[in-house]
């Protein structure tokens, strides 16, 4: 079953060791947030180029060549399809002419967003995510469900793999063709156990929460937190500097693609 390989891939990906410099999740989140705002504002190829180069160096700094390579390969495929389709559309509708610069900017934006979210996703290991959340000082009503969500993602992955195996044992054919022919039946077979399991788990864990004395308004003191280091401040400042440079280039040298808008 494909889902099982997907699941194991996900787990392996989540468990891979992080060989990059350890940064606080908060600084990476700030960079991601900041970049998303700046990239939407800039619509010139020149301004976007500054952001793309800087963000590309940032994603390379995590040294996860394979993951970054796969992500870029996927983006390249998407870009090829988009180029072909928009070219086709331009032939059919003259009011939407084909412009290489016009297609470049959206993909530069996508690449930049990918460059800033990948470091966050690839360096934040699932087991360390709770520590990262503690560092965010979230209120009880956000921390508890977020912690529960993180706690149960691997469990549910495992559950789905087991459900798929059970179906194979019973004699169901779990091929792609079968899923195409009977999508609703397949969804029922795969996800009914998970739905019931979710409800049962939430019941048991809810009881456990009560028995552990958890309640809103509790005073939370983390016994271990990630420390905001000088390198985190440096990263955020660097992001601000890059954004300022990109905006300067955009307004000074930027050429907005035809039909585009600032």
């Amino acid at each position: 079953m494909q889902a099982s390989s997907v699941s194991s891939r996900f787990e392996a990906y989540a468990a891979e060791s992080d060989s990059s410099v350890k940064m606080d999740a908060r600084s990476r989140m700030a960079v991601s947030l900041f970049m998303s705002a700046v990239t939407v504002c800039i619509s010139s190829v020149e301004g976007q180029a500054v952001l793309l180069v800087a963000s590309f160096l940032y994603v390379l700094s995590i040294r996860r060549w394979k993951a970054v390579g796969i992500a870029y390969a996927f983006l390249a495929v998407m870009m090829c399809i988009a180029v072909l389709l928009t070219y086709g559309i331009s032939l059919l509708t003259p009011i939407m002419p084909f412009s290489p610069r016009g297609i470049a900017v959206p993909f530069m934006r996508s690449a930049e967003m990918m460059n800033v979210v990948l470091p966050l996703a690839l360096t934040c290991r699932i087991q360390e995510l709770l520590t990262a959340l503690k560092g965010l000082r979230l209120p009880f009503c956000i921390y508890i469900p977020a912690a529960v969500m993180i706690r149960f993602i691997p469990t549910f992955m495992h559950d789905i793999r087991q459900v798929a195996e059970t179906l194979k044992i019973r004699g169901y054919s779990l091929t792609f063709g079968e899923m195409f022919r009977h999508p609703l039946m397949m969804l029922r077979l795969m996800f009914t156990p998970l739905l019931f399991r979710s409800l049962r788990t939430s019941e048991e864990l809810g009881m456990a929460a009560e028995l552990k004395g958890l309640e809103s308004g509790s005073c939370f003191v983390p016994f271990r937190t990630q420390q905001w280091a000088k390198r985190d401040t440096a990263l955020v400042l660097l992001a601000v500097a890059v954004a300022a440079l990109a905006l300067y280039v955009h307004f000074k040298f930027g050429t907005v693609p035809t039909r585009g808008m600032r």
Partner: protein
Amino acid sequence: MKRIFSRWSAQDLVVIGVFAAASKVTTLLVALAGGGMNPISLMGKNLVFTMLLVVMLCRVNRPGTLFLFTVINMIVSMLLLGASVTLLPPILISALAAELAMLAMRDSTSVGTKVLGAAVFDIVSKVGSLGLSWLFMRENPAMMLMVVPFVAIGYLGSIGGLFTGVKAVKELRHAGIIRQ
């Protein structure tokens, strides 16, 4: 503010967390198993997400549930799965709109109200994601023509999810797991 935060019971929060995990895992697996862009998996993942949303709303009968669920989902998706922060505003607006729609109903605890909430969330979030796509692709409007069919196919899945959600709630009642 503190009052809003403090009225949640641990039990409700746990249900929201478990369903957030279940919806994340299932949509991720359906999308990856089907290759992401194929219409069946696109519909399938929206269907499962909406179904789980309806069941969760029936299980946690409290205003703000959908909004909290959305916030949790976005935080963890961002940290773990690399979801883009740009998705945050349209998704939060959709959740707020859905909460307001549910509050406006006379019987806020009925399954119909929950289905309405999920429907409003789905439609507003789809419109929001189209708006976001426009922001990202405004330099080349032809690309928007490529995005619209995918969003529309996903929305068909969401509509299917509303019906399967109601069916799932009925089944859960038959099994004695949800009682209202």
